[in-house]
């Protein structure tokens, strides 16, 4: 599957295209299929995303997982600071990153 990601313009937070909107949780990401470029152009124009790009991902029962390690780290946060993750209370939250 193909995901759209980028950073929130004001906060810089990593965000994922959900099909309608943007979420900070990769689990909410939707397959952008063939329409990625067009969606990105519109969303960047509307300043809802900054530095957007498309990535390959794998669909799993827990939700989409980016194919490349860089985007898995973006999805979760620095591997060396699990306390700063989006889900620091979940010890298994990052098991899929490395």
């Amino acid at each position, binding site marked *: 599957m193909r995901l759209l990601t980028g*950073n929130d*313009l*004001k*906060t*810089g*937070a*990593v965000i994922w295209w959900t099909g309608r909107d943007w979420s900070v949780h990769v689990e909410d990401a939707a397959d952008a299929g063939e329409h990625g470029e067009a969606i990105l152009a519109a969303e*960047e124009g509307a*300043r809802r995303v*900054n*530095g957007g790009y498309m990535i390959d991902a794998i669909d799993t029962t827990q939700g989409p997982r980016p*194919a*490349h*390690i*860089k985007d898995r*780290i*973006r999805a979760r*946060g*620095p*591997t*060396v*600071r699990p306390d*700063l993750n989006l889900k620091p209370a979940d010890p298994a939250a990052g098991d899929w990153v490395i």
Partner: protein
Amino acid sequence: MYKYDQYDQAMVDARVEDFRDQVRRRIAGDMNDDQFKPLRLKNGLYLQLHAYMLRVAIPYGTLNSRQLRKLAEIARKYDRGYGHFTTRQNLQYHWIKLEDAPDILAELATVEMHAIQTSGESIRNISADQYAGAAADEICDPRPWAELLRQATSFHPEFSYLPRKFKICVISSPADRAALRWHDCALRIVRNEAGEEGFEVYAGGGMGRTPFIAYKIRDFCPAAQIFSYIQAILRVWNLHARRDNIHKQRMKILVHDLGEEEFRRQVEEAFQHFLTLDTDFPQAEYDRIAAYFTPPPFETGLPDDIDRSDPDFALWVDQQVIAHKTPGYAIANISLKPIGGIGGDATAEQMEVVADLAERYSFDDVRVTHAQNLVLPHVRKQDLYAVWQALHEAGLADANLDLVTDVIACPGLDYCTLANARSIPVAQKIQRRFAEMERQLDLGELKIKISGCINACGHHHAGHIGILGVDRKGTENYQLLLGGSGAEDTTQAKITGPGFDEDGVVDAVERAIERYRELRDPGERFIDTYRRVGLDAFKEAIYG
């Protein structure tokens, strides 16, 4: 230290307001990202993996306690409670919001700090010996020169659109603690036979994709003519740089392409031209700046001995404390390399502890080192125990300066958008492997430096052992290098052979170190043994 006059303050304040307006326009949609990006970079604001990153300039690595407390306050208020000290003696915040950036810059301006020229194609923060003004072996304090050059080159029109970034370093001792010859332009203050002060000038160094060690372009440039000489170097580069190819824009490439002799000839020609323009620093201006760096009022008649009855303290003294030029005083290094921690990171609370100690025990003076540690440069020997106790309580009393666990590591793939691989976890695994103090002391000076990509922010080319993260078909892989140095015996490390995975490279480091233990002569450091026996003797051990 230097204090802003009304011009400095007005310039920095105006710059903050310019940027505030630029951010407002970007958020309002009056500018697109292509228009805005160069503007934010000129203010040290990058977009990294998880957020914006702000790089704050710490000129020649010198801070006072007020500034360090402000850095702590910003970490707490706008970031996530910590900052990262870099190999350019700067500080980076990794979790900045664009909408907060103008307020942060305004807060920095209240303590005479900024983020100007910490990015982009400009003359970057000028680095210097972290022991400046304190080192027993220095000719003079190099910082007045660094400050003069900082002022002369900031916002200078000819240097505002350089082909690429340009890094300058100034030291004034025979020992090199600042990786001098890895800079584009490096200055060592020396005295000639007549006893006059001047500069040994080096040009064309740099790490990155194509590493070069700077060569000595001039044995002696009179101090009064140094700005002409530096302008001449920049003029030749500016005229001939390969602006068409991003990988060939750094000055080191031009020096290499022209050849040292031809580059020198052209610089000398341009130098003669600049001498006629009368742009050098007048003596009165040097004196004005130097007055800010007059030595603090050191006491005389202080005891020179240290009570070593506490063995942990004695170990810390042996490892972290360096001779000071003034009797009764010492230079105290503060490790930011706890075993298994993140090298160069300091929490807001730790910054405040160091600020308090500086104010109380070190004439309000703190230094940042390119090895990502801190320094209290002027501590009375009789106060060292109290300093150590406070550091100990703050988790800052590791005794590993220049040892195998004092690893330099760039932020790597945990934070950096350009990275191929993570650096910090490798550093942590090496630290844990060699954590035992007896083993560290047995190995002695051993500098390990790790970069997450070819840009070499972690100085892997200059590591006795260097590690470079590469991307091998989407997975992290690490090349091992041996034999580099960033000291007065500068050398470039060589790649040993095929790369390793994360655990594999830690094992390979250990095999190289064990080979050193087998081969070393009494008193030899790792780098000495490597130089004596050569790479092959190590390769055998690493690859079997």
